[in-house]
């Protein structure tokens, strides 16, 4: 098993506040890694550092052999990392199909052309992805008109269009009812397995975490608190005290 994502000593401070503090992480190819931690632990900031939205103060990030530090988001996207956002971040006025089409167009480098019919390209490919995530029926609807759960599916579809090697999901089931949560994670697991994508995700729903992750990294106050398989994490006393709130922890 070779490492796909190697993170070494990555830090980020805002003013005096250390949001991410010397984080090390190695994610293997094909792994499903969950990052958990209380609010403010630095998970979202960490993901922003990985995808180029923020630049770290120190440390390095490698995708395979490629050094990612200093790359702007659009370069990192073409390098093989796709991210879906915590707050739904889709193209509202475009139809569902167009949302995926534009991601496909951008990925294939065809968007600089000033001639031709933009929306008539990549239709079949887009429809295929929509079918994969279960949105085929809504293809012609403006994305803003869809329900929250369906919009999350669009998020996933857009992320898949780039054929990423690493898929980063920031709280994919946030704000969902239990039934929707189950369906969404099943979709994620299926897609990730079929396309052989490495998955890195953050979550608050422990059922989701334990049901999907191969390994779990626990963050607290910007630092990595613990890391291991779900069983190891479940049994770790510090983790339980800080996060899972075990009843036998001393207060």
């Amino acid at each position, binding site marked *: 098993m070779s490492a796909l994502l190697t993170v070494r000593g990555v830090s980020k401070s805002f003013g005096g506040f250390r949001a991410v503090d010397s984080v090390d992480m190695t994610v293997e190819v094909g792994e499903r890694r969950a990052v958990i931690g209380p609010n403010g632990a630095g998970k979202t900031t960490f993901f922003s550092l990985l995808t180029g939205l923020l630049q770290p103060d120190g440390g390095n990030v490698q995708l395979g052999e490629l050094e990612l530090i200093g790359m702007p988001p659009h370069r990192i996207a073409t390098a093989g990392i796709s991210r879906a956002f915590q707050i739904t971040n889709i193209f509202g006025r475009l139809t569902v199909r167009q949302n995926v089409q534009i991601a496909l167009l951008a990925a294939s480098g065809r968007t600089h052309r000033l001639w031709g019919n*933009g*929306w008539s390209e990549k239709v079949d490919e887009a429809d295929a992805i929509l079918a994969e995530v279960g949105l085929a029926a809504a293809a012609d609807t403006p994305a803003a008109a869809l329900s929250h759960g369906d919009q999350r599916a669009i998020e996933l579809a857009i992320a898949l269009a780039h054929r990423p090697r690493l898929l980063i999901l920031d709280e994919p089931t946030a704000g969902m009812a239990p039934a929707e949560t189950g369906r969404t994670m099943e979709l994620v697991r299926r897609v990730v397995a079929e396309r052989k994508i490495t998955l890195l995700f953050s979550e608050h729903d422990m059922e989701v975490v334990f049901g999907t992750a191969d390994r779990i990294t626990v963050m607290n106050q910007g630092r990595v608190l613990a890391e291991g398989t779900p069983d190891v994490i479940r049994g770790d006393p510090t983790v339980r005290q800080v996060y899972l709130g075990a009843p036998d922890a001393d207060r």
Partner: protein
Amino acid sequence: MIARTARLRWVGWIALLAVAIPAPLVLSELQLFTASRIVIFGLWATSLNLLLGQTGLVSFAHAAFFGVGAYSVGLITLHLGWPAVIGVPLSLLSGAVIAFLMGLVALRAVHLYFSMLTLAISQLLFVIVFTSYDITLGDNGIHGIELPAFLGETSQVYWFVIAVAGLGILALGLVWHSPFGAALQAIRDNRLRASFIGLHVRRYELAAFTLAGMFAALAGSLFTVVNKSAYPGLLDWTQGAVPIFIILIGGMYRFYGPLVGAVAYVVLEEIVTRETLYSNLVLGAIFLVIVLVAPTGITGIAERVTGRLARRGTRTAEAAPPASLAETLDNQLEPISRDIET
């Protein structure tokens, strides 16, 4: 369904040309003048909509580019003695250069700061034109520009305007429907996400800004050909709101929206200025009502109506056509996207 609307579109354009071309045979001089104005404003507003409706950039600088085009014609006749019509293709170049330079600076900011930068730089250009008496004749403006012999009649000027503006609108239409145009729409909807799917957003915005400036300048050059004059007032920022209102009236999410808006605006403006001294009061009130009540413009209203009619014709929910963009926007309670810019 897509093929049918495309066919309808072509029919619409051909019908428009069929009406527009023989117009001088039927219309009076004054009416031809109005028609030219409509076409020029239509081109002007369509070029702005490349930024506004398609890329989501609210630019107040479009009066400046219009003025650049106008003065392109004025200055070459005044200082170089060249025929005025040379200024028309020249305006594409001057518009492109000025827009590119302005975009380099203005696009460093986003959203409202960008808008205000465009306003500031546009006013800067206005002041420069206004005070450079030696070059531009300052406040007096350049008047009495002579046109070549083949543009001696009003109808000939009109046909010239239709031809040039038509080509400009065609070019803008190509851009609107191109893959580049599709990328601009994604940037409009979600700048952040657009960069995450691999688009170098600022570069696209700069390209769009330059193109928009080029064709706004083209419109300005045509204006000067028709009116035979160029004056600083054309660059004033309050003029910059005219194409924005045209787009608002017509609807910003359809390519032909600004053209519809140009017809409505010019007609409205001429009626209002004829009937009352306080045209700003009336026009301002009308604009206010439109902003509050019908922000998706005429094309938006049309879409809502046809959408409702289409839905009434179907029996089952499944067969109903999807909600149109205009209807979706009307039901939208929150802004379409929220940028997570840290």
